[in-house]
């Protein structure tokens, strides 16, 4: 694809329209406080931050395997700004947080919105600096990559602790932040696999080894995800402290959350583990796209499992918001030539791997 399919102007226009539509829906059409927007926003943030984090990690580790899809991964970075501004809409739904009635030093509306906006905005700035450095071939790009990854960890931890965990304040899990940024990285790998799937429809793709390497990474992070999940679960199960156990008990024992939790484990770990063990299947693009979709869907259901026991969600509104936001992610990836021009990374394949 040599000529830009979507211009920067069109992409910015699409981002503004999507942001405005979601803001209008949440502020004027759906005034009841529920977690619909929170789920859509958390999931989109994980996708966007995860894609850029994957590319930044490849930059820092000099990963040759990632070069063919680096531009696509970087191209979603402007959406970090959209996500930062959209996060302010949580102020209109603040009643879903029990602490809003009894605010304290850390959990009060203004500080909650301000710190999340500031961290997301800084993450956007770091990503922008990184992409600019990569485009110019700056020798400082590794510094910016490291800076972005540090901010990515802080940002995803804040998303975990503030947006999701504080829904059930005073329940706490110190691993929640780590669990979230591993998840985000895993979604980034799933998106990378889907990008490869679409690019491999071109017979002269030369991306087989890149797909194999991406599949290996997806396998590794799927195992790491379940490790983090089990590490949290085991400590809470062992401790059996009433104020801790209630959170987990609701989600793993009570219907319908118990079924959904099992579906998450099966789709994010059991099936990917079984399929990705196979060496030949790692190079079959449709199978890998299926596994990536399953992981992405599983992690979406997981966000619902975390939120649903404490806040309602409107399925039609959630579907509309998620479709709009994911379409925007897709549009930015398709318009990569406008955001990260040819010459960054490599246009061709990488059969040598590395």
């Amino acid at each position, binding site marked *: 694809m040599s000529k830009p399919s979507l211009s920067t102007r069109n992409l910015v226009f699409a981002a503004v329209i999507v942001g405005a539509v979601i803001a209008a829906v949440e502020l004027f059409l759906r005034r009841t406080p529920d977690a619909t927007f929170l789920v859509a926003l958390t999931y989109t943030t994980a996708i966007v931050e995860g894609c850029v984090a994957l590319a930044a990690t490849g930059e820092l580790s000099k990963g040759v395997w990632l070069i063919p899809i680096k531009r696509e991964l970087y191209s979603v970075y402007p959406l970090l700004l959209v996500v930062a501004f959209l996060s302010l809409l949580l102020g209109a739904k603040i009643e879903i947080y029990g602490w809003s009635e009894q605010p304290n030093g850390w959990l009060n509306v203004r500080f909650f919105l301000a710190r999340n906006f500031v961290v997301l905005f800084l993450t956007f700035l770091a990503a922008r600096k990184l992409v600019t450095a990569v485009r110019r071939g700056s020798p400082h790009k590794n510094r910016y990559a490291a800076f972005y990854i540090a901010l990515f960890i802080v940002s995803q931890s804040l998303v975990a602790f503030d947006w999701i965990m504080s829904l059930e304040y005073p329940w706490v899990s110190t691993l929640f932040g780590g669990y979230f940024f591993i998840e985000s990285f895993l979604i980034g790998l799933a998106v990378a696999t889907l990008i490869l799937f679409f690019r491999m429809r071109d017979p002269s793709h030369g991306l087989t080894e890149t797909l194999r390497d991406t599949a290996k990474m997806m396998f590794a992070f799927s195992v790491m995800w379940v490790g983090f999940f*089990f590490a949290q*679960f*085991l400590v809470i*199960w*062992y401790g*059996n402290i009433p104020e801790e156990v209630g959170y987990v008990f609701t989600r793993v024992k009570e219907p319908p959350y118990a079924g959904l939790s099992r579906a998450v484990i099966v789709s994010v770990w059991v099936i990917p583990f079984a399929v990705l063990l196979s060496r030949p299947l790692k190079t079959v693009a449709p199978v890998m796209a299926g596994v990536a979709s399953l992981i992405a869907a599983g992690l979406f259901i997981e966000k619902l499992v975390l939120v649903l026991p404490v806040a309602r969600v409107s399925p039609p509104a959630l579907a509309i918001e998620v479709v709009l936001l994911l379409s925007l992610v897709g549009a930015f990836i398709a318009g990569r030539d406008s955001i990260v021009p040819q010459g960054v990374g490599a246009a061709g394949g990488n059969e040598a791997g590395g």
Partner: protein
Amino acid sequence: MIDRYSFDAKGAFLDKLDELVKSGVPRKSINTFTPYPVHETEELLDRSQSAVRFFTGVGAVAGCVAGFAFTIYTVLSWPLITGGKEIVSVNAFIVIAYELMILVGGLAAFAGFLFLTRLPVFRNILSDSVEFSRKFEITVERGERS
């Protein structure tokens, strides 16, 4: 009896190897010694995938089963209720089973590697002591190993 061919350059070495394979010399009787890894030799000698993975798989499954069997057997033999948990608490036993799976799988892989490569070898695999240095060597074993 062992035939030896020695080369200074990789190209000549690969040409000879190709010639030997095409002339019908059994691939199993050919050994190569190179100063650095030459992946073309694997293709020419058509080395199939290593069987070590079967040792690893069997070892890992055995370790996992042993981990669960050992923990369940011991708690049933000496039942103590701890922290209000069930006697057979699978959540806690997963850790033991997982560790044993890795341990036995790893040891089985190492044992399988030694077995399949017939290591350790306490004698020279060539009839005389040779310093290969930067040479590319091909040895062909004719007849039975002594």
